[in-house]
């Protein structure tokens, strides 16, 4: 299992702040997780296909090819707008 967190606009769009997600195999790439989430249909597919979507693993921004292991924390969020 991995913990997935959704922030800001994404959390509103998905009506989901956090979930426990079962990896299909022992390890998974972010791309694979995105494909599985998108398979839930709208609004998930729309959110996961957004070119501006950012993803962090264990609170560090990663590329979609990054590998996720059980126990990891995955965060999905839009471009940041602080300051």
């Amino acid at each position, binding site marked *: 299992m991995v913990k997935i967190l959704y922030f800001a606009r994404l959390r509103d769009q998905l009506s989901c702040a956090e979930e426990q997600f079962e990896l299909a195999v022992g390890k998974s790439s972010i791309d694979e997780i995105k494909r599985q989430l998108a398979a839930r249909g709208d609004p998930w597919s729309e959110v996961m296909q957004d070119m501006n979507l950012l993803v962090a693993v264990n609170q560090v921004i990663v590329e979609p090819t990054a590998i996720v292991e059980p126990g990891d924390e995955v965060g999905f*969020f839009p471009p940041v707008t602080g300051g």
Partner: protein
Amino acid sequence: MIKVQQEDFSLASEYEALWADAPKIGAIVTFTGLVRDFNADESVTGLFLEHYPGMTEKVLAQLVEDAKKRWPIINVRIIHRIGELKASDQIVFVGVNSEHREAAFAACEFLMDFLKTKAPFWKKEQRQSGDTWVEAKATDQERATRWQS
């Protein structure tokens, strides 16, 4: 010192802390960001600041490390507020001290440019007609990119 907090902060106290820190200090540069008049849109009644607890602090600490590698700065203080804010409220503080002004000026601007493009904060404008998430600006990204050359 990095703080993410709901409470307001005192510029005087932050300045005092930067002043008192070390005898070598010859320059203190501080930046304070305020909540603007919401793009002059009168229907906006307030602003809400969300962040990614844990990651925010990590990103800011890494930015301070990056700045310290680049310039001979001595101490850095960063405060970012979260939660409900109104127009003209203080929202962010970055203070840097160093022996000479060049390092403090440059590091302070570097830290703000990357805070705006890397630290996981999000602004939501509150309107009578409903809330709207603020869009990221390309100009902020361009400002941060300048430092890579």
